[in-house]
């Protein structure tokens, strides 16, 4: 075959090396050089990376060749062909066999130069691709940090947020394992982890190191302080507005060769930046959770207030010979004050009660109490029986700590009597002429003890007398200094207004309590019910 054709075939074979991976290049080179020259054996040494040594890449069976070849060494062989461009030495081909012609030697020399160009192109192409990859990777890191800011700041669900944080962190620093710890008192408890952690809480010593450092720190090779069986660990504090609110930890950075390595300074910086974003996101999620809880509480309070408003009397009873006034002033936080009126055969029955607790539970209990009371009254039962049945009902059907204090009275203007049951409630006042009397509690609050029996108390209630029922929101109303209004002030007031109409007495008490409390917030419901029977008709003496 003419030399020119042999040379063209030779170059064509070498050209194919551009697509070959490094480990297969040596045998392909040796094959091309032995097929297109008179030599039938040899060895090839190649330099894998710039500046590295030349390693044996292929050799014929009959050939003895060293594994490593120094740059200035010349291998044994009839012909040695350097694979080099002007400045880069890619390797050497040593050939053994028959004597070659000058033409063959010229061809081999040219082939060596051509091969160097092919390898150089391949290497440049590889470097360009790696550079492109690194550039894109850095861009991805930046984009990720930006995205994390947007994404995790927009994620207000703490569970979803925790997953997002872990996934992003693992990707960013090529970690094999990671964990998010959140503060619980003085300790940090694992909230989410990818891979096992050594324990549920961070070690005190580890916590101290992380908190003291205030930034991303690494733990020594083989440290298993956070993850068991790991090689390298990194941890970074998550700094909230006033304190460290959590810790991010990761272990075992992956390398492309399949190994694991320690985290590098740029990864620590990246992790610190990431932790700043996480801190904002966690604070947002916490504030959101608090706002939701507050909203839920406000909704519950509104509902409770509605329930309570709906069951309180819309107006006053109109009974011949009895004048009535009432006040119901609920506190902002719904309490459990209750009052009601019943009319039966010219008598007035009224009740003032206070249910233990606040908000929805109290409102529900008031509602149940209201229903039971109306049923019992409709059955025509007397006060003691009503109280006894209410007590049994509440004791059986409500929680242990639920009870009701109440005062239930019936005024019979014709018989001039007042019947009452006071179950653990504030004493009520009876005003007769200039005299003030208290009707004190004579039984446990309703619902405390299932076996309690309540007896109706009866006393005279002369024409023109008044009765004042109230809840502890009146007598225990507090001013800014924490002082209570107290019964003494109430009694002084009642003495001063002993002969006034129920509405006047109500207004006087309300004004005095308001003046006493001033700007202090109203802590409890305030309820007043005042009833007075018509005074006896006085006839002028006949003259």
């Amino acid at each position, binding site marked *: 075959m003419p030399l020119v054709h042999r040379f063209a075939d030779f170059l064509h074979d070498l050209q194919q090396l551009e697509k070959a991976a490094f480990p297969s290049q040596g045998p392909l080179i040796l094959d091309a050089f032995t097929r297109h020259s008179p030599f039938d054996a040899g060895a090839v040494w190649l330099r894998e990376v710039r500046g590295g040594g030349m390693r044996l890449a292929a050799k014929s069976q009959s050939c003895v060749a060293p594994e490593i070849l120094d740059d200035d060494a010349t291998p044994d062989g009839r012909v040695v062909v350097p694979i080099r461009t002007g400045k880069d030495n890619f390797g050497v081909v040593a050939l053994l066999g028959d004597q070659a012609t000058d033409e063959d030697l010229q061809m081999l020399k040219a082939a060596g130069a051509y091969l160097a160009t092919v390898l150089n192109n391949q290497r440049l192409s590889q470097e360009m691709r790696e550079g492109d990859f690194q550039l894109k990777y850095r861009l991805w890191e930046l984009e990720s940090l930006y995205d994390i800011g947007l994404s995790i700041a927009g994620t207000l669900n703490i569970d979803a947020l925790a997953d997002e944080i872990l996934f992003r962190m693992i990707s960013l620093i*090529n970690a094999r394992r990671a964990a998010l710890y959140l503060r619980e008192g003085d300790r940090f408890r694992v909230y989410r982890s990818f891979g096992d952690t050594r324990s549920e809480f961070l070690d005190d010593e580890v916590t101290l190191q992380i908190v003291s450092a205030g930034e991303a720190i690494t733990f020594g090779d083989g440290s298993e302080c956070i993850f068991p069986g790991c090689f390298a660990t990194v941890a970074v504090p998550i700094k909230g507005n006033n304190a460290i609110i959590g810790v991010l930890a990761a272990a075992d950075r992956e390398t492309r060769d399949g190994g694991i390595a320690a985290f590098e300074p740029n990864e620590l910086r990246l992790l610190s930046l990431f932790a700043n974003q996480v801190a904002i996101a966690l604070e947002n999620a916490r504030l959101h959770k608090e706002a939701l809880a507050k909203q839920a509480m406000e909704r519950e309070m509104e509902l409770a207030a509605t329930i309570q408003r709906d069951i309180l009397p819309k107006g006053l009873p109109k009974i011949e010979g009895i004048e009535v006034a009432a006040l119901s002033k609920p506190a902002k936080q719904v309490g459990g004050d209750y009052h009601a009126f019943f009319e039966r055969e010219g008598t007035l029955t009224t009740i003032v009660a206070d249910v233990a607790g606040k908000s929805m539970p109290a409102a529900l209990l008031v509602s149940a109490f209201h229903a039971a009371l109306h049923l019992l009254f409709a059955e025509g039962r007397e006060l003691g029986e009503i109280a006894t049945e209410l007590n049994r009902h509440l004791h059986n059907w409500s929680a242990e700590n639920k009870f009701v204090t109440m005062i239930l009275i019936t005024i019979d203007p014709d018989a001039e009597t007042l019947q009452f049951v006071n179950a653990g409630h504030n004493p009520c006042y009876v005003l007769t002429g200039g005299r003030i009397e208290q009707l004190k509690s004579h039984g446990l609050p309703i619902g405390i003890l299932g076996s309690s029996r309540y007896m109706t108390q009866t006393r005279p209630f002369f024409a023109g007398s008044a009765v004042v029922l109230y809840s502890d929101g009146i007598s225990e109303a507090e001013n800014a200094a924490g002082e209570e209004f107290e019964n003494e002030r109430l009694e002084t007031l009642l003495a001063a207004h002993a002969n006034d109409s129920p509405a006047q007495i109500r207004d006087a008490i309300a004004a005095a309590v308001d003046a006493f409390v001033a700007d202090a917030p109203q802590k409890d419901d305030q309820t007043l019910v005042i009833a007075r029977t018509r005074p006896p008709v006085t006839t002028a003496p006949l003259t």
Partner: protein
Amino acid sequence: MSEELKVAVDRRPNGAILYTKGYINNVGGEEIANRAYELMDQGAKTLLLNLRETKIVNSIGISILIEIIEKMMEKEGAIAFCCLTPVILKTFHIMGLANYAKIFENEDSAVKELGLGN
């Protein structure tokens, strides 16, 4: 959450669908590569990677996926992906995978367009 990646293969007449579950990192990427190269050696020309149960991929995993794509391109075949999380989708776009591999929102549309039906 599992650290280990699992790959399930559904062979189709013209190729295969590979279902991944877990972290595509070095180990996970190599697992996918081994299965993909096996299929390529058996003549598969179209491989669809369904990443529905993969939430994390790191840079090494991505470089391995790029190698798989390049190898398939040498064989004049095609690699495609479907069911990516928004984060992984964006990552693939930034890292250039989307330039050499088709990405589908769901498996049905991918199977239809790639001709991977049974």
